[in-house]
């Protein structure tokens, strides 16, 4: 058995964008400008900020510095 169905893979949006850019010379130096520099990943990326003061107290410094619990 054979099949005549051919699968057409549509280019992705990004591939279309890249194909579009191939026709042009990029003149401007386009650096990515970040607003700030977040900390490196070193602690578990977990822990919210429940409105309850007790969770903050767990960190012990809340009343002095506005710290919050992040474990």
């Amino acid at each position, binding site marked *: 058995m054979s099949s005549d169905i051919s699968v057409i893979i549509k280019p992705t*949006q990004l591939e279309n964008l890249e194909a*579009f850019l191939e026709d042009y010379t990029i003149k401007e130096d*386009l650096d990515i400008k970040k607003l700030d520099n977040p900390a490196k990943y070193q602690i578990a*990326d977990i822990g919210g900020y429940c*409105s*309850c003061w007790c969770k903050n107290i767990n960190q012990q410094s809340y009343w002095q510095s506005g*710290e919050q619990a992040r474990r």
Partner: protein
Amino acid sequence: MSSPYHIFSTRDNEYIYSTLSNDIVLIDDLTSKIINSIFRENKQFGQTIDALKKDHNLENIVNSCSLVKKLTSNKIISENNKINLLKPELPKKPYSSTLVIGLTEQCNFRCLYCSYSGNYLGQREHSNLKIDLDTSLDTINQLADMQNQKIHIGFYGGEPLIEYKKIRDIVAYSKKKFDKTTYSITTNASLLKKDKISFLIDNDFITVISLDGPKNMHDKWRRTISNDETFEKIIPKLELIKDLNSEYYEKKVGFNCVLTPPYEFFKIEEFFNTELFKKNQVNFIQVNMYDSKLKFKELDENSSRQLEILKEKYIQDLIENRPEERPKIVSSIYEKPIKQIFDRVKNPLLKFPINGPCLPGIHKLYLNSSGIYQICERSVQTLSIGDIRNGIDFKKSDKILSDYHDFVRDKCKDCWSSRLCGLCEVSPLKNNVYDKERLDEQCDIMRNTLHNSLIMYARVIEKNPNAFISLFKQ
């Protein structure tokens, strides 16, 4: 669909916040249009360019497309990568480092908006139920068996000072069982007398006093059982604490202020900046409108305007290095999400635990007056994690995390705020069960708060890049 992102604007600039990389990157309006068109609205690329050519010159379009390409190659935005939100895991050897004891369900006040007033669906009401001293001490023994280095014990009620003698006994006992102990209490302050204040000072308690601002605002809601006004009963207690030890008063006494309609923010801010309060921390909480028989109005035009003016002052105070003058209301509402933004970590991560929920029984263990362990004082017995007889059931803690994860993950994986979110296991509860509609409401509020927080954060950093470093690292 692309990885989640959020575009927001300050007065001067436009930014994209990337959930994937946790970066905040400067973009222009044209780049923002291209990103939204091809990644969010999923319009054909050619169609997008044709539409833009009507209002923009080709060179700018090319430059913006080039920036979009760069954002994708740096994994700030991705067409294919999906984020995967994991269930937070309990430590292998779990232990509780904070115990909050609901000493009694009795209270000498009958504040109309109180969760326990009978005006709220699914909440307990005031009763004469009190905890046994032995029950509290047994819990302390159970916790000390897990680790005996340090513990924080919070005393909660009802009005916990009704059970003052038990507080003394629990404090004395806990000091024998743990190397380091810290304490806090949430009180209406009406029962404070010299001996009790001295005890709190001697044991370095964090004392959180409920006070709703100027007399008329406070007395409107906060009444005794016999419906008497309470403001005049409290102020002399505060003066007494200050007289006894002004340093303790300024550093260790804080206030919980419930914001109620008509939300007169200017008057409340002014009140908490008068001599008696200006150095104290104040935690502002909007009155609980959910599942209430009372109908609370939302913020009206005037109160919204007042809040906007205070937000503007907050921004300017930080830009001009006057953090000590920043409005307390804005600080209380927005500084936690802003800190969450400040504390975010870089690296593109495709998998990370859901942000927000606490680890039940680990971040905090709440012992209610019936001897049942709950995840916090806001939760109901459906989120119980054992009892005094059988100990803390960390399997139940894990089940609570699993249930929450199952309930929210499909919604979270496409949400731009999932790495900054502060919703927790209690947030989607309606009448003690998880409710999709309640979750949607809470998500909208959270995203709105985070959107505003991102704008405030960026506006400050644009003018004073070190403002939050000095605020949070002090």
